[in-house]
């Protein structure tokens, strides 16, 4: 049989395009045992070794779609980049944090943090309705946060182990020492707010000074509460969380202001809600600007923010936040306008948290986002070393 006309040999050639690019290098002169110069197994750098042919890319994609995204396989929607990996398996582990627990915790923490500050300030500027709303949102959000956080633990009954040590290197440890007093104080302020209208509560408990003290105490931890959760995500090896680590705190606090301001504005008579409105509009602007930086400044690591479920969530978040901010600025003085734009801002904030969470999870599942940036880093370092 003539090999040249055999159908199988043509197929074989098509499958091996690299054979033209990796010819036999020049004869190695001082290699007496090397009977096949340049084609030895382990000795030749760049000897053309590729992972053995599995299914073609098209087949892999089809199979992955059928699989419905189970397991730890790569994201089938991303484009292929030039990089090597171990059978496409992920390198870093994905966070084991549950959704919606943790994204909701991020959202509630931000909303509660900014509400606590608004509530404390409202106490001293004669805005009782705003103070009341803000205390309830802050306290309710904080207590729910604690619930979500404990529910997310693998061993919930051991939640107090969080307070065994204090470690500045662990954002979760620092966060535990923020969340604990924050939830206790804002929860107290919220309870005292509710107690005002209950007849059976003793009068000394209803004293405004007690509520104000709790409110101010909670407000002290409000800013850190909204900001630390960004560091919580960023201080991981998850590429799309770690790389924008200096910008994420502004996304999260901006988002927290938008949510807290939006919710306070929705549940407060408009004549007292002006500070909440302003906070919401400025916060939404900060969120949009910072999120734009996260989505564009980090090359390939920004990609997960645009594609897949994270991309959809973040596009919806942007639309909600922008519409809510414009609505609050233009129509926030009317009751229905305040309710509608406040709800939009809160929805935008929640969608942002879900989107950021999802983007990070997606980035951990595809080895591309680990290998490509690290390769670039190595190449840049090598180039710098060559220059000097």
């Amino acid at each position, binding site marked *: *049989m003539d090999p040249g006309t055999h159908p199988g040999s043509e197929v*074989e050639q098509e499958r091996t395009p690299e054979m033209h690019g990796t010819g036999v290098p020049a004869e190695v002169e001082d290699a007496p045992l090397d009977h096949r110069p340049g084609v030895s197994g*382990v000795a030749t750098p760049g000897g053309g070794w590729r992972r053995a042919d599995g299914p073609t890319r098209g087949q892999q994609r089809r199979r992955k779609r059928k699989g419905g995204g189970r397991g730890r396989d790569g994201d089938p929607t991303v484009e292929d980049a030039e990089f090597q990996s171990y059978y496409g398996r992920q390198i870093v582990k*994905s966070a084991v944090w549950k959704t919606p627990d943790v994204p909701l915790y991020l959202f509630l923490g931000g909303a509660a943090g900014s509400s606590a500050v608004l509530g404390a*300030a409202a106490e001293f500027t004669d805005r009782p309705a705003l103070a009341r709303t803000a205390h309830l949102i802050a306290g309710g959000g904080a207590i729910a946060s604690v619930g979500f956080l404990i529910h997310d633990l693998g061993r919930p009954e051991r939640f107090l182990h969080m307070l065994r040590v204090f470690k500045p*290197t662990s954002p979760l440890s620092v966060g535990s020492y923020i969340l604990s007093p924050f939830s206790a104080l804002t929860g107290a302020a919220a309870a005292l707010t509710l107690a005002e209208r209950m007849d059976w509560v003793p009068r000394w408990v209803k004293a405004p000074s007690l509520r104000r003290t709790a409110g101010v105490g909670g407000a002290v931890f409000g800013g850190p509460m909204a900001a630390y959760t960004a560091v919580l995500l960023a201080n991981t090896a998850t590429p799309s969380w770690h790389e924008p*680590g200096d910008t994420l705190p502004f996304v999260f606090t901006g988002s927290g202001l938008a949510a807290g301001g939006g919710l306070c504005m929705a549940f407060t008579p408009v004549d007292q809600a002006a500070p909440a409105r*302003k906070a919401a509009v400025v916060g939404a602007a900060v969120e949009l600007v910072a999120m734009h930086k996260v989505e564009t400044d980090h090359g390939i690591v920004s990609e997960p923010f645009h594609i897949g479920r994270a991309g959809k969530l973040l596009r919806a978040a942007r639309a909600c936040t922008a519409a809510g901010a414009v609505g609050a600025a233009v129509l926030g003085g009317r009751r229905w306008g305040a309710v509608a734009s406040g709800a939009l801002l809160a929805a935008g904030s929640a969608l942002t948290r879900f989107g950021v969470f999802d983007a990070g999870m997606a980035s951990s599942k595809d080895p591309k986002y680990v290998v490509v940036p690290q390769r670039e*880093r190595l190449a840049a370092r090598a180039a710098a070393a060559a220059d000097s």
Partner: protein
Amino acid sequence: MSQFSSASPAFTGHDTENRLYGPLPDVTGEAGYEADHPARVGFFTDTSVCIGCKACEVACKEWNTLPMDDADGNRDALGLSGMSYDNTGMLGANSWRHVAFVEQSRAVDLPMPAIGLPAAPGQGAGSGGGCGGSCGSAETPAHGNADGTTIDQHSVLNAQALSSFDPQTAQSGDREIRWLMSSDVCKHCTHAGCLDVCPTGALFRTEFGTVVVQDDICNGCGYCVPACPYGVIDQRKGDGRVFKCTMCYDRLTDGLQPACATACPTQSIQFGDLDELQARADARLATLTEQGVTTARLYGRDTDDGVGGAGAFFLLLDEPEVYGLPPDPVVTTRDLPSMWRHAAGAAAMLVGVALSGFLGRRR
């Protein structure tokens, strides 16, 4: 024993003693042990002599009574990874040693085939679909039983021989197949991300300089899982806590070697004092390089790398990512001071914006 400054470098970024990042000659002392602590121990995994027998995996599973799981970490599941001989798949809560099987092939650049040559016995059998004997015949001129093959087969552990005859390489049609095998394990980093971020203190540095989880303290927060730049530690499903290689802390305290190193039949996994292993690895690399194995490189050996050097390091024969290892891992805590500073700025921004709304005209 190192001095403890009043403000943590995690907040200030003032890390003169390399407590977050950079070389740290006495990691055990930095962790607070007295000066007479044992020497830092480690693994040197020389993948050039790994035969993929998985004795390390089995020994580890048995000694540590690790439950069964599939390649994705699902408990009590027997599943095929669908990619190679590797159904362990990854390091995780239930697999503290993982032998990677990298099946690689490449086209053999052949001289033009001499038409009509008969197929050499045993050559055409493994060739790809439909190729049959005629493709096999093509490689006969290039790869017939040259005398060198026989010689090399008798001395496969000799690096010079390895450079020309690799026992892990075989012919298949016009393609050449080789296997890279590497037993992966927790790196026991000098700057361990998992240890840094653990909020309960469940993860700790032992007197041997290794990193171990105390499973009676771990509350399953899971923060260490995404913090590891190598993707080693994982949460055990159905249990909730995290688990990883302890370097057989229990055996070490009784003067024994870790189970995997004890079981390894080819000394691919070597256990010992880290400085001694490093010297041994340097010598091995020099030997291989001198004898022409130019793809050999040490991984995790450099104390100037992103994790301050690993307690378990490797000699690899290809790029790290081919084995599923990150090419340039960095402990996430290196960037934490900057993140805290920006978070402080963001928190101040929040308070400022919220309070500024109360200024000015009352509407």
